[in-house]
């Protein structure tokens, strides 16, 4: 109720916004912004309608921004890609005065160097999460605490990782005790992955794949994203998300506004609604990544996945957050991964 009042005043302040706009959001499918009730509540409060378009990889998102200037008003960008988008002039600085909820985002997140590429905030911190792994609880008496479970012969042919070069390499970097953003011993990574290959049943490509493989009993242990894991657990799959003692990959997603957007005010309003605690708590009930908004995170019930696991400071201490990857490294990782796959 209070929220709607706030929105109403915001609209009153910006006279032009009174005209209903249609804003276009570029995001992964089913990733928060396109929830029917959320879009509906936004339309009711602000008068703006929301249309979605989806991408299937970060590279695709960048290409869409480059080739369709003016087509999008809000875009979700992983912080590791924000500097690139900023440098190419694809996204513009955020007007922080228009995002009221930003004051509830902890300064260490709001001050993230990647989101603040070019010396100004270019992506409003929205959600964060981990890339770690989950186990099929039916196959384990005790939840493993080490990443070495992937190399355990007892689970041969029951293991899966995502078919993604960067993720595979960073995963092996963690297993070999290296810094994921500065891998000094790539040969060790390659050897570790080569050793992993015979253990693998299949690669997974999407949350959907993952759930089906687990439900069919094809897998004992597989890498997974924390937000997806919380969704799978909420849907009743017998899985448990693990942050092993070796650590996990962390990522931070921000919402940005393309330079070419013609509806920047409506876009700011939408982003403000997206980091609002009221939106987040409802979203998290069905499974969501962790919110960047401290107030939203605190508003979760105590037994909530994101509060229980990602809210634990000891867990967070083990997380290595992804930084931008150079073109050169990206290419090297891909060659390594393709070579390993082709050898199968």
């Amino acid at each position, binding site marked *: 109720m209070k929220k709607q009042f706030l929105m109403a005043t915001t609209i009153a302040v910006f006279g032009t916004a009174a005209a209903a706009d249609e804003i276009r959001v570029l995001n992964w499918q089913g990733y928060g912004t396109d929830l029917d009730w959320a879009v509906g509540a936004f339309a009711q409060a602000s008068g703006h309608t929301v249309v979605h378009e989806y991408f*299937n*990889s970060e*590279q*695709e998102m*960048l*290409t869409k921004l*480059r*080739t369709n200037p003016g087509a999008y008003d809000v875009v979700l960008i992983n912080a590791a890609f924000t500097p690139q988008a900023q440098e*190419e*002039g*694809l996204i513009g600085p955020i007007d922080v005065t228009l995002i009221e909820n930003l004051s509830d985002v902890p300064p260490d997140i709001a001050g993230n160097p990647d989101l603040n590429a070019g010396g100004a905030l270019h992506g409003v911190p929205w959600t964060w999460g981990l890339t770690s792994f989950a186990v099929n609880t039916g196959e384990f008496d005790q939840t493993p605490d080490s990443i070495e479970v992937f190399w355990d012969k007892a689970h041969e042919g029951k293991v899966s990782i995502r*078919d*993604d*070069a960067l993720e595979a390499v960073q995963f092996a970097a963690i297993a070999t005790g290296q810094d994921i953003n500065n891998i000094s011993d790539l040969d060790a990574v390659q050897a570790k992955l080569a050793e992993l*290959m015979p253990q*693998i*049943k*299949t*690669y997974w*490509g999407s949350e959907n794949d993952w759930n*089906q493989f687990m439900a*069919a*009993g*094809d897998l004992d242990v597989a890498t997974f994203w924390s937000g997806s894991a919380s969704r799978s657990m909420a849907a009743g799959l017998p899985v448990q998300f693990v942050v092993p003692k070796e650590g996990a990959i962390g990522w931070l997603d921000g919402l940005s506004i393309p330079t070419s957007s013609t509806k920047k005010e409506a876009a700011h309003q939408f982003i403000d609604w997206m980091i609002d605690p009221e939106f987040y708590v409802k979203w998290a009930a069905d499974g969501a990544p962790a919110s960047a908004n401290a107030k939203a995170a605190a508003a979760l019930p105590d037994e909530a996945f994101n509060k229980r696991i990602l809210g634990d400071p000891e867990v967070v201490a083990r997380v290595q957050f992804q930084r931008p990857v150079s073109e050169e490294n*990206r290419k090297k990782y*891909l*060659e390594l991964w*393709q*070579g390993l*796959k*082709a050898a*199968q």
Partner: protein
Amino acid sequence: MSNVLANQERLKIFGLLSPAYLWLTVAIFLPLSAMLYFSFLSDVPFGDAEWTYTANNYRAFFQTSTYATLLWKSLKLGLMVTCISLLVGFPCAYVLAKAIKGRSREALFLLVILPFWSNSLVRIFSWAIVLRGNGVLELGLNAILPFEVDVNLMFTTPAIVIGLVHSYLPYVILTSYLALQAIDDNLIDAARSMGANKLTILWRIILPLSLPGLLAGAVLIFVPVVGSFMEPRILGGRVGTYFGTVIEDQFVAVFNWPLGAALSFILLAVVLLILAVASPVLKRAQT
């Protein structure tokens, strides 16, 4: 006079061909030419990306053994799927064309294509449900057989082959059917009355006369299977890395379009070369 006729004929040819080929030019040949051009660039020239002319994308194919190995693997897969589809599909087409008469034939003919009025991804996922451990195939076999069997074909090469044969079988059935149906039954009767046995009739009359259909079917299968990526990826799991999946990665995951384009044109060149080498051999077989 003959000049006028020739002109008229030219006009007719032009009138019949130009709509289709103009369409193809605008929507396929020109875009693919643009792609060919990209394959010689260091980066896609969008925005202010910097790029130079280079042959590196083609050189990449030869720099590691990865691509050549995978292309060879894909060609073998294409050959296997084509042969199986021909062996399985031709008898079907024969029965359809010669042993079944009247309306039921038309109905059956339609039934062969109908499964393909559905989404290929949904079909492939359905195969996964059939082939996986504790899946439909295993449950079905155990219901019929007196002993327990363990069938888990999922994530194996046979699974890929089954999925691909399923996807492309209708092509060979239909093209063979169209050719077989055109063979005059009187010709077969005449040969029989002159004492030719069944094998001779098959070998000397039916096969040669239906060869155009068989070949069209074979080409329609072999060519796309070599570049296929969806069936291998989903049904093959760990063993499902092929040339097509690597190209897909370049376009979808990595967005290195120049390299992906270069790999596609290498694929096209190899496939055309194979067809060029095969066509005189097959022509001779026909006569």
